[in-house]
């Protein structure tokens, strides 16, 4: 993993079309401005994590087999 230090107002480019700028630093919070093409999906990490956890929970489907058996009776 690449780790870079940036100051307020400085930015990072990903390829030629995506620019990430540190727009504000206040205490333990950083505001980030992202300029990217519309076909780039931007998501907060915690939301993706929540979906990932929900998916992992959803593949545990042993209960469903019981449900189906019950339905057939």
């Amino acid at each position, binding site marked *: 993993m690449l780790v870079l230090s940036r100051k307020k107002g400085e930015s990072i480019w990903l390829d030629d079309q995506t620019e990430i700028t540190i727009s504000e630093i206040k205490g333990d919070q950083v505001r980030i401005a992202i300029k990217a093409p*519309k*076909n*780039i*999906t*931007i*998501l*907060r990490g915690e*939301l*993706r*994590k*929540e*979906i*990932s*956890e*929900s*998916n*992992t*929970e*959803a*593949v*545990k*489907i042993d*209960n*469903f*087999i*019981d*449900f*189906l058996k*019950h*339905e*057939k009776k």
Partner: protein
Amino acid sequence: MKIQSIILGETEASESEILTFDNGMPGFENEKNFILLPIEGNEVYQILQSINSKEVGFITANPYLFTDEYNFNLDESTVEALNIESEKDIIVLTIVTVKEPFNTSTVNLKAPIIINTKSRKAKQCILENADYPIRYSIETNLQKAKG
């Protein structure tokens, strides 16, 4: 081709039915190929089964069986990634998290599965700007879903 499913056991499917998730799904980034399997005797639920890992199978359903108010715009990245040309080529599914007893199960309205039936490409879209729950109780609408 033969598909192994933890729920249905060994089942036969056509290669032309394979759905490609280019980037997998959150939590399952390496599972790129799935197939939608019907459940005999059950019209409501289908299994979205990985063709490579029999233990990776999701129970899915039509979200509109559980809620009437479900509208969202597909973002440009999805339209592009799935080569969507027409709205009528799209199927929307919701993933069911099965709980015991079954009527306490939930569906994930925050991250529907979008399938382009024409290109056979699919993606789990996370609706960041829409206020839908990741765990929406199916209990109140279960009777309706049973039809």
